[in-house]
């Protein structure tokens, strides 16, 4: 799938920057370097996670490889008070806002459900594995923000596959009706597991919102500056009470769906090769170097920082997991434990004591 003629692109494949009249970038040099730095961190941490999974330290991993610009660019547009609702692949979003990568990996280590970070502190809601089902949460949360006149925005990350679900469409409708300040950010990586987007969407996805009365815009999802500028504008609109926007970032999932996947079964190597050439990081490096924002040694320093980050991620994951406290199974089901659950807990404790006594 190729970009729509109307798509926004600030940074072309060869690293040339062009202003867009409707989507001003408005970033300082330091900000731009910051975006590059995050791309590198995300790429490196993601590679580390893939390796960690191969080595058995993670149960599963859903790689970000290729989608860094979409995640970093959009998340960089978040401001304090905003809230993002990820699906399951938005590792780069969490890293961009500064969540400790180890906290995002604990789910994949099988240690906890949902997520290991503070939602309030980070502004990033927990993972949502049932596809599309976070969209109504985003709309409702946005309704709350609007009622409280918080002038904050919500961003709902949705895969291309999520546009098959009823929930996403009901949410588009509700967001328009209640002017919920949501940016629906479609990370179109062209596959929903094995299903190519051509098989799930008759038209480019940004157009899906038209009939609901929401503006839709497509952006080059491998252009971190474009993703930033388009999301920032949609978020400004949302914060100003002007309503929701659908943003489609067209990118590509270079890696497998997850580490359990075998993409060779359903897609051609040359397609992947084509998209490797459109790597979001290469063009950004060409740009920051070419524009003289950084020197090669600055880049080396960033690579070095990424190594440090990866080492820390590895250390956190290969460390013995915190001792399992099976009793916590019984906690946080309800505010007060019901009689049947308390009975199960007691029986379980008694049983464990007995087993220990006899062994």
């Amino acid at each position, binding site marked *: 799938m190729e970009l729509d003629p109307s798509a926004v692109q600030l940074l072309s494949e060869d690293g040339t920057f062009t202003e867009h009249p409707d989507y001003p970038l408005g970033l300082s040099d330091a900000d731009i370097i910051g975006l590059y730095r995050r791309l590198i961190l995300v790429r490196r941490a993601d590679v580390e996670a893939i390796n960690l999974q191969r080595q058995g330290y993670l149960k599963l991993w859903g790689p970000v490889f290729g989608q860094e610009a979409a995640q970093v660019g959009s998340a960089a547009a978040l401001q304090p008070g905003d809230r993002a609702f990820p699906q399951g692949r938005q590792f780069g979003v969490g890293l961009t806002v500064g969540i400790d990568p180890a906290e995002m990996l604990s789910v994949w280590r099988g240690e906890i459900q949902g997520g290991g970070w503070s*939602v309030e502190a980070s502004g990033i809601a927990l993972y949502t594995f049932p596809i599309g089902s976070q969209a109504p949460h985003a709309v409702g949360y946005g309704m709350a923000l609007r009622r409280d006149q918080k002038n904050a925005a919500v961003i709902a990350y949705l895969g291309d596959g999520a546009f098959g679900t009823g929930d996403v469409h009901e949410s588009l409708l509700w967001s328009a009706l209640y002017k919920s300040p949501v940016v629906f950010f479609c990370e179109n990586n062209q596959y929903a597991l094995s299903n190519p987007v051509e098989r799930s969407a008759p038209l480019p996805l940004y157009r899906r919102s038209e009939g609901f009365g929401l503006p839709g815009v497509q952006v080059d999802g491998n252009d971190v500056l474009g993703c930033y500028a388009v999301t920032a504008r949609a978020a400004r609109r949302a914060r100003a009470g002007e309503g929701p926007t659908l943003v489609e970032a067209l990118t590509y999932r270079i890696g497998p769906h997850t580490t359990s996947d075998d993409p060779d079964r359903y897609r051609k190597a040359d397609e992947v090769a084509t998209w490797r050439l459109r790597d979001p990081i290469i063009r950004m490096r060409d740009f920051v170097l070419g524009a003289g924002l950084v020197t090669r040694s600055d880049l080396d320093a960033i690579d070095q920082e990424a190594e440090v980050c990866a080492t820390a991620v590895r250390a956190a994951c290969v460390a013995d997991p915190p001792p399992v406290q099976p009793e916590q199974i019984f906690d946080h089901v309800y505010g007060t434990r019901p009689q049947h659950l308390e009975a199960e807990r007691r029986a379980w404790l008694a049983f464990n004591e007995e087993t220990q006594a006899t062994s």
Partner: protein
Amino acid sequence: MTTFVTALNAALSDSMKADPRVLLMGEDVGDLGGVFRVTDGLIAQFGEDRVLNTPISESTLVGAAVGLAMGGYRPVVEMQFDSFVYPAFAQITWHLSRFRYRSRGQQTMPVVIRVPYGGNIGAAEHHSDSPEAYFIPTPGLKVFTPSTPSQGYALLREAIEDDDPVIFFEPKHDYWVKEECELAQREPDAPGARIAGQGSDLTLVGYGPTVKLCLAVREYFAQEGVSIEVLDLFKLNPLEINMLVGSVTRTGRMVVVHEAPVFGGFGGELVARVAGDCFAALKAPPLRVGAMSTPYPAAALEHEYLPGMDRIVDAVDTSLRYGVTT
């Protein structure tokens, strides 16, 4: 005299007055006041900002309530009829019920889903279901169902004040039942059941719309000198097991009555509890009386389909006569 509808309406109104974070949402809950008028007058009183008349999107109705709860609100959602909660099943089961657990206590879910339920109103297809068995097994979700107007008032206020999500089944056949009562809140730690009528020979367990039937059966047997204890389970999850077990241990006999079909119904859980915890005390097999295990039939057949007094009396008789040679 208070009807169920006015009691529930008062509970909503009083809850909204007590807490500005309480919102109402649902189809036709605005100017119409809901098809059963439970939200009558509330939009006039509290405005469109707090009474949201929504499109027909039950999944997002619950999903948006989840989001509003994350934003600090306490949404009370109305489903128009029992079976129309089904499109929200995924949002309820995946999300609403689990947030406290998956966030390890970070995020509570103070959402109430009101569902008029049950039959006996001559309605068309899909308007008479008793779907409690689809929700009771879900950990993290509470399931309440009142049997009288005053109980409805107290229980709905409690549900709205609860930080856990509650699915609140309202016996729609009894919406216009009248009671001479005062509407008052109970102790927050009200148990989940009450002995609606004491007795010593058999425990008759009902909830929601079947409690009145159980009480009528109790009267009937009282005239024959048989003493029946009626237990009204107004919370199905969490279940007041101790009271149930205590009663059946005393009487040695149990009959459960619900409007849902017997096969796979909540009666199975109740019998299993009793068979496990009162085994030695049981004088007869615990019995279940419910609707036939078929889809809800046309109105012309619903009286045969639903458990009526006659079938309950028969089951009680069977239990009382068990082991007695005549």
